[in-house]
C-alpha cells in the first residue's frame, strides 16, 4: 500500500459532495438497514454543508444514491416550493448535476420531510425520509442505551401502555404524526413525522423507503412489500386524520391530506398538502391536459 493508491489528486469537491469513504460507510449501513426492516442502524453521519436537523440524514442518503441520471424531487411538508426543499434540491443538483423535477411520476429519488406524495410510488422509485428523531421509544425512554436494549428484547410494553393510557384519558390515541409502527412483525419504528394519513402508504408498498436521521446518526429502512402496522388495539382501530371529506379550496379536489388555512372570520379553508398534486388538480380544473398517477387514497379512503 502506498500513499498514491490511497489518495488521488485534490479536487475542490467530490462528486455528490461526500467523499468515497463516507459513501461506502453509508452503503454498508443501508444494506444492513434493508436486511433488518425497521431496525435503527447507527452510522457515522458526516457533517454536510447544512445545519443538523435540516435534512442532513436524508441528504447523506440522497448524495450516496445520486448520479447524473437520477431525477430528484424534494419536498418539505408536502411542498416542493418550501424554502428548505428548494435549498436541498438546489444543493443536490449543484453537487451532482442531477436533473430535478416537481412531478412525483418523473422522479427516481424523492427526498421528503414529513409527507409521502399522494400518487403511488413505483418499484423503481426510492423514497428518502428525513428523520428528526429515529427512536419511537423516546417518549417513554429518553436514554438511547436503554431504548436500544428494549428493541433488542422486543420489549414494547411501555409503548403499549402509553397508548392505552391515552385511550383511557382521551378516548383515543393522541399521537399525531410519527405514529409508531411495527415493521415486519419485529421492530417498532417511527415512520418519521409523516401524518397518520401517510403511514398506510408504507405497508406492502412497491417502493423502497429509507429513513435517515443525520443528527441522531441512525438509519432504518422499509423494503418493498414489508408489513408496516401502526400499533393499535383490536377494538380501537387506527384512525387517519379526518381529511377524506375536505375539499381543496383552490382546485376543488377532495379526499386528500389538506393544509388548514385559518380565515379572518374564524373559519378555515383547506388546500391540498401535496403541492404538485395540487397544481395538477388546478390544471385539470382549468382544462389543461394533466397526467395523474394512481393515488393511494380513492374517494378519501385508503385503497
Amino acid at each position, binding site marked *: 500500500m502506498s500513499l498514491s493508491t490511497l489518495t488521488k489528486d485534490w479536487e475542490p469537491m467530490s462528486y455528490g459532495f461526500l*467523499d468515497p469513504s463516507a459513501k461506502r460507510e453509508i452503503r454498508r449501513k443501508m444494506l444492513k438497514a434493508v436486511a433488518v426492516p425497521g431496525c435503527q442502524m447507527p452510522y457515522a453521519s*458526516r457533517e*454536510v*454543508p447544512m445545519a443538523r436537523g*435540516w435534512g442532513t440524514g436524508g441528504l447523506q442518503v440522497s448524495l450516496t444514491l445520486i448520479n447524473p441520471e437520477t431525477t430528484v424531487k424534494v419536498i418539505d*411538508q408536502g411542498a416542493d*416550493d418550501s424554502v428548505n426543499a428548494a435549498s436541498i434540491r438546489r444543493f443536490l443538483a449543484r453537487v451532482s448535476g442531477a436533473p430535478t423535477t416537481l412531478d412525483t411520476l418523473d422522479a427516481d429519488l424523492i427526498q421528503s420531510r414529513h409527507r409521502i406524495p399522494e400518487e403511488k410510488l413505483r418499484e423503481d422509485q426510492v423514497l428518502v425520509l428525513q428523520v428528526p428523531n429515529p427512536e419511537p421509544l423516546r417518549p417513554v425512554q429518553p436514554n438511547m442505551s436503554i431504548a436500544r436494549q428494549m428493541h433488542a428484547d422486543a420489549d414494547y410494553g411501555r409503548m403499549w401502555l402509553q397508548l392505552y393510557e391515552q385511550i383511557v384519558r382521551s378516548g383515543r390515541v393522541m399521537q*399525531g404524526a410519527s405514529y409508531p409502527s411495527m415493521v415486519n412483525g419485529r421492530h417498532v419504528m417511527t415512520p418519521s413525522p409523516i401524518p397518520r394519513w401517510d403511514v398506510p402508504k408504507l405497508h406492502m408498498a412497491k417502493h423502497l423507503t429509507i429513513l435517515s436521521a443525520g443528527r441522531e446518526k441512525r438509519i432504518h429502512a422499509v423494503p418493498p412489500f414489508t408489513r408496516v402496522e401502526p400499533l393499535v388495539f383490536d377494538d380501537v382501530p387506527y384512525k387517519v*386524520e379526518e381529511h377524506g371529506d375536505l375539499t381543496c379550496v383552490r382546485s376543488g379536489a377532495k379526499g386528500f391530506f389538506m393544509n388548514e388555512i385559518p380565515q379572518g372570520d374564524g373559519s378555515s379553508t383547506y388546500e391540498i398538502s401535496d403541492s404538485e398534486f395540487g397544481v395538477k388538480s388546478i390544471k385539470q380544473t382549468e382544462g389543461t391536459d394533466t397526467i395523474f398517477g394512481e393515488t393511494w387514497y380513492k374517494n378519501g379512503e385508503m385503497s
Partner: protein
Amino acid sequence: MAYVATRGGERAIEQSERLYRAAMGDITEQRVDEVKAAMPYLIDRVMGEASLYDEDLAALALAQTGGELFEAVLALRAWRTTQPRLQVAAPIAQDQLFTHRRISAAFKDIPGGQVLGPTLDYSHRILATDVLNGATYAPEKVEAADKPSSAYQPSVAAWQAENDLLDLPVPDDTKPEDIPDVTREPLLFPSKRAHTLQSLARSETGGALALGYAAMRGYGQAHPTVNELRLAEAEIAVTHPNGTTFSAGRVKVSQAEVVSKKGEKLELGFAATLGWNEVKCISAATLDLNSKGAEKGSATEEEFYLYHTEGVESSGFCIHFKLPHYVTFQSSLDAMRDAKAKKSPKPEPAQ
C-alpha cells in the same frame, strides 16, 4: 395561480442569504489575515470545536459567517469531513509538549514549577475606551525571566502516581491508525474511551461549561481540583510511506487534569482539545471526572453530556424549529379535536 411558484421559494432563500452577506461586504485575503491576527483565541475555540487545525480556514469561516460561531464551526466541519486522511500522527505524551503555560491548583509548587505563561487571569478587566477616541492600546513589552522555565514538563499526575496517590490510566497501546475515530463511526454507549475524549475535544465550549458547571455546583458527585492545566504546542510527527518520520509542524493544544478524592486515592478526569481553550478543558475534564457511576439521565452521565455538548447537532436542532411544521401540527390538531368531540356530551336523540 394558486400555489407559490417554486421559483418563489428559490428566490426568497437566495435573497435572504444575500441580505446576510451584505452586512459583511467583500471578504478578502486581507480580512482573513486580520481576523486571524486579531482573535487567536476565537480561532482556537473554533478550531477546537471543528476539530480541524487550520488557522487560515478558521479565520475564513469566521469572516464568511460574520462571526456566527455555530455557522463557522459547521462550515469547517463540513469542509473537514470530505478531506482525505493521508496520515495518522504519532501519539504524543504530556512531557513532550512544548509548554507555554502550566499551572496546578493542587500544590503551591510542582516539579518543573508553576509556569503562568499568557493569561488574562490577573488582569483588570477594564475596557481601553481611549482606543475609540483614536488612541492606540499598545501592549507593554514582555520582560523575559532571568531563568527560563523548561519547555518540557512532566505531568503532575505522574508525580502523584509515583507517590501512590493516584492510579494512572493503563497505557493503551492501540496502534494510532486503529484508534476509533468518532468522526468516522457512530458514537455508541458505553462509549469507547477514544470517542469520549474526542467528543469532549469537539464539544461546544458553552455547552461543556453549562454541564460542567452544573457538576461543579453540586449536581455531580466529585468536587474538582485543577491538578494541572496546560497550554502547549504539540509536534505532529508523521511517517512518510518510505518510512521516514518527520514533523509536519506544531499545533496549539490545551489540556486539563482535574482530581477528586475517592477513598485513599485521587480520581482523575481529563480533557484536551486543539487550540487554547481553558474553560472548555476544565469543564470537560470535570464531566469526565464525574461520569463514572453517574446516574442515567443525570448531567454527568456520559450519554447525557456527550450528546448535549455537541455544538453542531444541538445548534442545528435548535434552529430547525424555524422550519415549517404545519403537517405535524395539523396531525396533532386532528387528534385533539377528535378527542374533544368525544368528550363533549352528545345531544340526546329526540323522544
